[in-house]
């Protein structure tokens, strides 16, 4: 690992290009020396901590189940609030001196507290809305004051789920679904495309977990929508709006926004033939896959991942893409023969497009090389 030397070189190149000043570079070097692995914990360490905390929380819920506290909702609420208070007070007053064991234990205690509140109000008192409101308030509190990134990720998820529950009106199910997809998709595009604004702001510690939570909500949400595709079709008489068509339009608008942003950044005219053909391809994709929002979501996440060079988003989107593509062809109401022919035809079409694009890239590279040699 030679990150330090590479970073020093990069800082020097930023100074020579007048992007940062020499003083900023010196300060940056000091910061990097002190903080390299203190501040930046790899995602898989966060994942390990998260898995550990969830497993521990399950065991603690088991403790409450065997203590017979789970039978009484009031006792359970008291237990939940106590656990949440322990986690929050501890994190507020002993943040610096806390050992990793205490921090992990508090994470598990906090998850247990959240679960107990959800079980007691949502399941035992059978009031989903009050459970959602309480979880929303708790999530906001933890998001603002609990320092661990893994917990912030959980809090954002809980906040989004609570909002989805609160906004879920059975009488206007279709408009609610559309509204939720619209908000989450637009927020995703906004937060990832203008990432620099959020990262360099005062509240940068909150934005990272929000970004990832929004991505996972979009992928999971559209995945669930795909799963219930048949049920929704069955209920078609109850639905007044063409859900899939409107969602496809939302996705097309987001794709267009993303492509426009990229073209603008690369100083390419959106009126050129290649740019217009990109818009046309996305339009065709949205028309073909309008019945599978998860596929369009995976594609959007993939493009966002490439645009931001994010090493978590790209593999995540590829997995989601394979899964949703498989689901799409499986759910197609066609015979096996027609399905296979459709697969082969779309495969050949994409491969041919890839070959043309590959040739164009090579031609451009050669042109660039010739120009360079000539110069």
């Amino acid at each position, binding site marked *: 690992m030679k990150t330090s030397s590479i970073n020093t070189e990069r800082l020097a190149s930023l100074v020579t290009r007048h992007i940062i000043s020499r003083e900023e570079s010196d300060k940056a070097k000091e910061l990097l020396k002190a903080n390299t692995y203190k*501040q930046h914990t790899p995602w898989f360490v966060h994942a390990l*901590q998260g898995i*550990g905390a969830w497993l521990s929380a399950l065991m603690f819920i088991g403790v409450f189940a065997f203590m017979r506290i789970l039978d009484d909702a009031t006792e359970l609420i008291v237990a939940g609030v106590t656990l949440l208070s322990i986690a929050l007070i501890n994190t507020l007053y002993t943040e610096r001196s806390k050992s990793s064991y205490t921090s992990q234990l508090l994470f*598990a205690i906090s998850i247990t507290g959240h679960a107990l509140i959800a079980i007691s109000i949502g399941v035992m008192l059978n009031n989903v809305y009050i459970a959602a409101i309480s979880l929303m308030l708790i999530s906001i509190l933890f998001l603002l004051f609990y320092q661990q990134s893994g917990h912030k990720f959980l809090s954002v998820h809980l906040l989004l789920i609570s909002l989805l529950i609160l906004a879920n009106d059975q009488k206007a199910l279709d408009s609610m679904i559309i509204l939720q997809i619209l908000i989450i998709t637009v927020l995703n595009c906004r937060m990832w495309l203008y990432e*620099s604004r959020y990262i360099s702001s005062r509240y940068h510690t909150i934005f990272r977990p929000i970004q990832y939570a929004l991505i996972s909500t979009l992928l999971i949400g559209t995945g669930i929508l795909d799963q219930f595709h048949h049920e929704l079709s069955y209920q078609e008489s109850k639905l007044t709006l063409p859900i899939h068509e409107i969602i496809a339009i939302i996705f097309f608008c987001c794709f267009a926004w993303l492509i426009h942003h990229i073209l603008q950044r690369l100083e390419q005219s959106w009126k050129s033939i290649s740019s217009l053909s990109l818009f046309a391809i996305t339009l065709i994709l949205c028309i073909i896959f309008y019945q599978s929002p998860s596929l369009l979501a995976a594609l959007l996440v993939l493009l966002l991942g490439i645009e931001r060079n994010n090493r978590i988003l790209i593999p995540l989107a590829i997995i989601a893409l394979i899964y949703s593509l498989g689901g799409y062809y499986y759910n197609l109401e066609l015979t096996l023969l027609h399905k*296979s022919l459709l*697969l082969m035809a779309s*495969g050949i079409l994409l491969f041919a497009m*890839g070959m043309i694009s590959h040739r164009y890239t090579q031609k451009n590279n050669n042109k660039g090389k010739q120009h360079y040699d000539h110069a």
Partner: protein
Amino acid sequence: MEKYRPAIQQRPDTSWLYLLASQLPLAPQQLETALQKLTVIPNKAIWLHWLNLLLLSVGSGLFLSGVMFFFAYNWEEMHRFTRFSLIASGVMITAISAWWYGVNTLIGKLLLTAAAVLTGVLLATFGMVYQTGADSFMLFSSWAILILPWVFVSRFQPLWLLTLILINTAVFTWASITPLNWHAPDQAETLALLIPSSINIIVLLLRELTSFIHQPIANARWFSRTLIFWLLCVLSYTPIHSAIETNISTVYQVFLILFYIFVLASLTYYTLFIRHDLLIFTCVLLSIIAVLISILTQLLDFGREPVINFMLMGLAIAGMTALASQLLLRTARKWEAITQKAIA
């Protein structure tokens, strides 16, 4: 033809710049310009590379799944020779096209992968038409053997992965049908775990050795990481199973547990002292935690004292994961300090 070199691998990590942006008063526009100038955010060439890669790989994937679905259906109307000639011509066309494009290009590599997959389709159709009665072990093993020359020629990691999947599947299916399974099931199980693991280890060793010689592929760690993850999953099975069953009755189980410990120790040594790879070290620690949890599950009597034992288990899991994450972060810092010292 241009030699295929993934441009993405050479791009720098973004985390350090984000760290700076959060600590220094770096303006958003300043950060964005820095990201662009350092090609952290892709330029036109990288975008085109991604576009090509996506179109070609998704296209070939869809086409091959279409072919498989087409022949998976037992077409009565189609004469067997028509079926064979269709697939065989597919194999020939893709193989010749790969040679035409050159096996060092991305298109050539993908075409060769397509030829390898179509070979399997051909073998499966042959078995289906003539009802050879051959076991799936025969199908997977002959498929793997037949495509092996292409695998060597292509030097394409996804094709290597496909071959390893075929070999592993062949051995697992062999273990379920071999007469050894009825006479000495422990022996059959041991072989089923040991043979593919040994092959995977040999490939892994070769891969890692060549990555030291051939530097550009050293950056692409996904193949080794996938292999190590799979290896640990397979080898962790015996200690976890033995702990849950509270039974180490045969010499084979003892041997497999010792083998698991040996692999674990070697991987730990390799990642800590030779190739600094925190993700692999995390996988090793995760495997140890899984084995320890299964041992604890047996040691604690949940039926008699559930409250205390659930509590103990929860505390133990939190303790183990906390210890593991602390160890990981400390190791990362230590590696960073070594690098700093080397620079100084």
